[in-house]
C-alpha cells in the first residue's frame, strides 16, 4: 500500500486546521478595531459646545 497520500493528507489537513485557528482571531481583531474607530469618530468633540436644547 502506498502510504504517501495518507501522510500528506494528514499534514495538509492539520496545517489547514491550525492555520484557520490562527487566522480567525486576526479577522475578529480587524473587526473590533474597525468598531473602535467608528466609536472614536462618532464621539462628540469635547471642545465644541453641546446643544442642550430639547426642541
Amino acid at each position, binding site marked *: *500500500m502506498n*502510504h*504517501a497520500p*495518507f*501522510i500528506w*493528507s*494528514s*499534514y495538509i*489537513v*492539520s496545517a489547514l*486546521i*491550525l492555520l*484557520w*485557528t*490562527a487566522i*480567525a*482571531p*486576526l479577522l*475578529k*481583531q480587524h473587526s*473590533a*478595531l*474597525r*468598531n*473602535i*474607530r467608528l*466609536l*472614536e469618530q462618532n464621539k462628540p468633540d469635547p471642545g465644541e459646545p453641546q446643544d442642550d436644547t430639547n426642541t
Partner: protein
Amino acid sequence: MSSKQNIKPRKNALVLFFHKMGSPPWFFAFAGKLIPWLWAVFAGLAAWGLYLGLFRAPPDYLQGESFRIMYIHVPAAWMSMLIYGLMAVMGFIALVWRVRVMEILAMSSAPVGAAFTLAALITGSLWGRPTWGTYWVWDARLTSELVLLFLYLGVMGLYSAHDEPRKAARAACLLALVGLVNLPIIHFSVKWWNTLHQDSSIGITGSHIHISMLWPLLIMTVATKFYYAANLLTRARVMLLQQDLRKGWIRDAVKLNDDSGLNQGITQ
C-alpha cells in the same frame, strides 16, 4: 511601634507578576509584546521538527513510512489533553477568585484545544487506514477523544449562548471542570480496555522509540506548546478588545493611525 511592625511584607516576584496579569491593560500590553516571539519560535521549531520527521528519520520496520503521521498526530493528541487540563485549571481560578483575565484565557483556550483534538482525530483516522485497515473503530481511546471534542464544542457553545460574557464564562468554566473527568479516561483507556489503539510508547521513565525517530517528535511537541501560547494570547487580546470596546484604556492602547483606517495598529 517596634521595628518589626515597620517592615512591610515583601511580595515574591512571581506573586507580583500574577497580580499584574490580573489587570486587563497590563495583560493586553504584555501579551502584545510576547506574541511575535512565540510565533517566531513556533515557526522555527515546527520547520526543524517537520524536516527531521519527514525527511531525515528512517522508516519504521513494521509500519514503513506511515509512522511519519506520528509527528503531527501525537503532539496534537497531547495538546488536546493538556489544553483541556489548563482550561479547567484557569476555569477553576476564574470561578473561585473571579479573575476576569483567567475567564478570558480559559475561554480562549477552548477553540485551540478543539482544533488540536480535531487534528488528532483526523490524523489518527488517516494513520489507522494503512495500519489497522480501517479509518475508525469505536474503541475506548478513539471514542473518549471524540467525547473530548464534544466537550470543547460544548464549552464554546455555552460561552457564546449567553449575552453577558462574564455569566457565560462562569457557566462554561463549570462545564470545563465537569469534563475534566474525561482526561484520565482518555489516558488510561488503552490500559483499562482492550483497544485497537496501541499503548503509549513514551513515558516518564523512558521511551520505546529509537532516538533518531524520537527527536523530531520532541521538537514538534515543544513547537505545539508555542503555537498554543501564541494563539491563546492573540485570542485573549481580541476578546479583551471586543469586551472593553467602550472603555478608556482600550482606546488608549489602540492607535488609530490614519483617517482611512487602513493602517490601524495596536500599541504593544
